[in-house]
């Protein structure tokens, strides 16, 4: 995570960016895995997770990386379905389905993996250039 108190390097910048994207991908994967899950109460339903990104500027070097400030639960309302035969149905015969939007999660996943890829590519180019500079005779 880049040693605290040390100036930000390109490597720690990229690493923190990659970790943030990984958190985002994991959140989207959790949401997709829980799509369609049913609970017996509104409070017990799975709520989609969403990480909150924030810029972390290193004033000494002028570089800016990204931190995951929090992973928030979405405020979307659980979907109520009347299904008295369901084993989890409550006193009214209702069950509650997780409010996961599969399309939105899919887009989130794609966007995140593209940005991850992009960062890896930028890092490998930068690394290559650094090595070339180091090997200079």
């Amino acid at each position, binding site marked *: 995570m880049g040693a605290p108190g040390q100036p930000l390097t390109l490597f720690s910048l990229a690493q923190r960016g990659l970790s943030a994207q990984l958190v985002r991908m994991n959140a989207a994967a959790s949401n997709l895995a829980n799509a369609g899950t049913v609970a017996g109460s509104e409070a017990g339903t799975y709520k989609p997770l969403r990480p909150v990104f924030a810029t972390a500027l290193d004033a000494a070097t*002028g570089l800016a990386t990204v931190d995951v400030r929090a992973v928030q639960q979405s405020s979307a309302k659980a979907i109520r379905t009347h299904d008295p035969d369901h084993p989890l149905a409550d006193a009214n015969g209702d069950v509650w389905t997780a409010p996961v939007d599969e399309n939105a999660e899919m887009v989130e996943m794609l966007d995140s993996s593209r940005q991850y890829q992009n960062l890896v590519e930028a890092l490998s180019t930068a690394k290559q250039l650094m090595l070339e500079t180091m090997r200079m005779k």
Partner: protein
Amino acid sequence: MNETLFGIHGTALALRSQRMGILASNIANAATPGYKARDIDFAAALKASTSGASADQAISGATRYRVPTMPAMDGNTVEMMTEQTAFAENAVGYSATLQFIKGRVETITRALKGD
């Protein structure tokens, strides 16, 4: 100018390296709401440092916010294609500068060895 050995190329390499960091910052913050993409106006920074400004002064004086083609709703102004092309352009520039420096070092080495 006190860096007479490498001339303009020493300064250019430092600026290129700094610009690479700024562009990598933009790429890392592609999904951060409200992040404003930055870039260094390379020509302006080089001009400033060849006319006597320090590297830090030249960079802070030539850092600009990117004007987005189409601003996003969340206030983020990072556009992948812009950042990727800028990064590639900068990497090529870095390589070229490095070649110039290598050539210079080779010349000096040959002169020192005398063969």
